[in-house]
């Protein structure tokens, strides 16, 4: 369980690290681009690039969607990145196979977890993309593998409407007297052209020059550009503390129930074992064993049971962890804490049995 939580935290961490950004510039007042929707114009980067300390900027568009691939559906996060020159923030930092995206259209880099192969064609909405590169551990904050495509394509996927909707929208605009004024030629066309353009992105990723304080630059952007900017630390806080907080609570509750069930089972087993040995315990008391000695024996049995259970669980987690749909990160510290908790639960569970054992009358040992 802790491994599942750690995996989620790690997913968020990796998302931040692998984006190669120092600042995230998003729509004013939003927690974007991962935790909340954010939409900004794709030319705001010009203003940002001019700020002192900014080394490189990159527009990025994110959208989670379902793709059909080899007959089955997969949930992926499509990431639009700028591909005009290498090293733009947002692009995957390393490839396991293939090459970066070189063309402005219809090429893709996929995370290995999507199951896509090099050279394979994948259909996303209206177009087919060729997988030219593969990368690893590039997942969204909810664990969906990423597919990188050129920004222009991603904008189209995200913001362009389908043909029916376009016709519909045009008719609507034409029927609106504000846009279709008699005596103003060209106004309707201009309005319609602006409506069909996809000129938005979700965030601008900013890489800073070395030795520049991210907070200063972020403050600058906030003050002058009417945008919200997050530093790495703030982004971590958003992803770890806010985005997965509910999941963490969910896992926590699950852990509590699991602990209670475990305690009940251990208590039941130890209790049954004790009742099956009433005669032996009575004999122990008869021949002069202290209550403390008997309690210690039962406790020892319970802890032994707990140890076995823990080892089985740990091995099972190690073996099956990779089969989990989301990343599971097993940390020795968690294992240690888990062990302590299991032992505590077993000790607690043995109390019922110890109580029962202490009530056994030594006289029961004699006679049949």
């Amino acid at each position: 369980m802790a491994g599942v939580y750690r995996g989620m935290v790690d997913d968020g961490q990796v998302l931040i690290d692998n984006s190669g950004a120092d600042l995230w510039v998003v729509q004013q007042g939003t927690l974007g681009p991962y935790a909340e929707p954010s939409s900004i114009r794709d030319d705001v980067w010009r203003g940002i690039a001019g700020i002192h300390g900014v080394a490189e900027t990159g527009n990025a568009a994110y959208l989670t969607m379902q793709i059909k691939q080899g007959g089955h559906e997969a949930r992926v996060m499509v990431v639009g990145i700028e591909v005009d020159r290498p090293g733009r923030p947002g692009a995957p930092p390393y490839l396991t196979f293939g090459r970066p995206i070189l063309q402005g259209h219809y090429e893709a880099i996929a995370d290995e977890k999507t199951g896509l192969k090099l050279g394979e064609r994948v259909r996303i909405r209206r177009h087919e993309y060729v997988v030219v590169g593969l990368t690893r551990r590039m997942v969204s904050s909810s664990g969906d593998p990423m597919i990188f495509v050129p920004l222009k394509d991603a904008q189209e996927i995200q913001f362009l409407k389908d043909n029916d909707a376009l016709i519909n929208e045009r008719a609507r605009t034409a029927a609106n007297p504000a846009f279709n004024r008699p005596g103003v030629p060209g106004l309707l066309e201009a309005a319609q052209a602006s409506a069909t353009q996809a000129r938005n992105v979700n965030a601008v990723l900013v890489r800073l020059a070395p030795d520049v304080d991210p907070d200063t630059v972020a403050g600058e952007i906030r003050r002058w550009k009417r945008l919200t900017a997050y530093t790495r630390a703030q982004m971590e806080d958003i992803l770890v503390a806010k985005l997965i907080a509910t999941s963490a609570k969910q896992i926590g509750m699950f852990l509590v129930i699991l602990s209670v069930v475990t305690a009940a089972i251990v208590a039941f087993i130890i209790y049954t074992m004790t009742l099956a040995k009433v005669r032996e315990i009575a004999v122990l008391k008869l021949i002069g064993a202290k209550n403390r000695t008997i309690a210690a024996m039962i406790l020892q049995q319970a802890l032994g049971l707990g140890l076995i259970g823990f080892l089985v669980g740990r091995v099972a987690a190690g073996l099956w962890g990779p089969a989990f749909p989301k990343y599971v990160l097993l940390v020795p510290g968690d294992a240690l804490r888990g062990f302590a908790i299991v032992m505590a639960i077993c000790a607690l569970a043995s109390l019922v049995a110890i109580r029962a054992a202490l009530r056994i009358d030594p006289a029961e040992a004699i006679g049949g």
Partner: protein
Amino acid sequence: MASDDTPAIRLAGLRKRYGTGDAAVDALKGVDMTVHAGEVVGLIGPSGSGKTTLLKCLGAVIEPTGGRMELAGEAIYDAERGGWQVGDLRALRRDRIGFVFQAPYLIPFLDVTDNVALLPMLAGVANGAARKRALALLTALDVAHRAGAQVSQLSGGEQQRVAIARALANRAPVILADEPTAPLDSERALTVVRILNEMAVQYRTAIIVVTHDEKIIPTFRRIYHIRDGVTHEEAGEGRPV
């Protein structure tokens, strides 16, 4: 100080009444009994006569309601002086009384040696010394070759011998045996009786054997018959085994 002819066990007018009022049952109505060190006596009687009740009183797990009980001349129970004369009954059982039961009732997760060594350890004897004593007893009882085995791997007869070793482990001057031969065939039952006789002589132990077992009754030199809570002493055949 107890001289040589001070009996190891002496009961005088011992009574036990279960319950009160209309529901009261007088299980023991004045039992007199004397057993000397190195002696094995039989205690026989029909069902419901009070045998188990007597053993429980002797074993200090239930309190008599009248009479007097002495171990090696020391009053353990005296109704006229307010009941138990010993503060720590648990220590009394541990140090001065050994028990052998119908079934061995060995502790399942301890090995044979530890089952025997457990008693001296409970009494505060050091680990090594306790195990050494246990091994000596197991040798005397001819089960030393199984000393490291788990108790569940022993035969019934072997388990019963380990149980006798346990009863002897604290050099208790008194051993109470409650139908110790009931689950054994006649040959092994006689072996157990022979062992008890040998141990009684070797360790100067007074042994009371409660039994129904026709096979072993002829071996006792002295027998106490108990009926309706009253005992009668009688000479046994004392057949050698």
